């Protein structure tokens, strides 16, 4: 225990007391209580409007496979927030992801495109052939998670991560396997541009950016939710390609 560690420990303990005492404050009327875990007051939060799908429309019951033409037709309420009510935030977060991936490519850019100094061992039989079977299955599972993102748990971020895992396994299994970076770039740019142009069409047709301008359909049908599944597919492609790019850059570094 040197001086710095003791100082760090004191800082941490003081900070911990400072943070935890915020949870002990008994709230006045109208303030949010932090000290009662498991008693979140959903009824008085904005979340209740999203659950009832009644931000701009009257409060009605939402029934599985019966309710029609709600303002957001997605059965998964988290998805309806990510890709519809707060899609602008998601656009910002996808931009952060894009910047991080581009920054990583810029930092690790190698003029000579020299062979990686990361030497893989000789491929083992089990790894090589196991991944041959796993690769299409993982791509299929990832696509399913993305496409059914508005109906079931999961969504574009999770599905994109699964697809990137498939490419990680492929890169790990063989020395010769190389990704075509131009195709990755084309997919990424197309997905990003289509996300923004869906938003701009909403601005043109309905008067505000990223409005749901399609019919939202019956809740829990595959073709429902208006622009939600389309936006989710573009985000899914973008996340998958960006994570694959990150893995590729780090392995070639």
């Amino acid at each position: 225990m040197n001086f710095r560690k003791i100082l760090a420990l004191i800082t941490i303990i003081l900070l911990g007391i400072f943070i935890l005492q915020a949870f002990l404050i008994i709230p006045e009327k109208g303030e949010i209580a932090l000290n009662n875990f498991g008693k979140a007051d959903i009824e008085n939060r904005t979340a209740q409007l999203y659950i009832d799908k009644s931000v701009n429309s009257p409060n009605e019951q939402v029934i599985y496979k019966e309710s029609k033409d709600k303002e957001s037709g997605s059965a998964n309420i988290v998805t309806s927030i990510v890709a519809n009510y707060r899609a602008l935030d998601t656009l910002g977060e996808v931009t952060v992801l894009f910047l991080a991936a581009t920054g990583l490519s810029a930092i690790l850019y190698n003029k000579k495109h020299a062979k990686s100094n990361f030497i893989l061992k000789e491929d083992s039989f089990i790894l090589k052939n196991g991944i041959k079977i796993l690769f299409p299955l993982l791509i299929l599972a990832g696509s399913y998670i993305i496409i059914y993102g508005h109906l079931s748990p999961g969504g574009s971020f999770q599905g994109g991560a699964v697809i990137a895992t498939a490419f990680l396994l492929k890169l790990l299994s063989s020395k010769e396997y190389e990704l075509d970076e131009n195709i990755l770039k084309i997919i990424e740019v197309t997905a990003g541009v289509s996300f923004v142009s869906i938003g701009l069409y909403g601005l043109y047709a309905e008067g505000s950016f990223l409005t749901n301008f399609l019919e939202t359909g019956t809740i829990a049908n595959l073709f429902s939710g208006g622009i939600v599944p389309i936006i989710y597919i573009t985000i899914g492609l973008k996340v998958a390609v960006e994570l694959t790019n990150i893995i590729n850059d780090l392995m070639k570094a």
Partner: protein
Amino acid sequence: MIDFLEKWSFFGGSVLLILIGLYGVITRKNLIKIFIGLSLMDTGINVLLVSLGYVEGGIAPIITSTINNNSYNFVDPIPQALVLTSIVIGVAVLALGLGVIIKIYEKYNTLDISEIRGLRW
């Protein structure tokens, strides 16, 4: 005891994770270990955000064939939507940091921050 744990394991545990991460960032000298600390802080914040929206006996906010209308006891979907994106961004930012570390190692041949010129304290 069980009641206390049930009530405080999520808030207390997430704050503890944040503090452990911060302790690692302050005391460690290896750049990789500093980034492990940052990643721990990230996880702690995510757990804290999700647990702020928890309702006792709550279920995931998805309308399915068994949970077929909106009057069930759902947990708060907004923190979940926030954390969903924040996890992916955490991964990307971590990768960016590791890229910087690779370049630092190529230039200085060390990961010890007290030996890297310009980072001495």
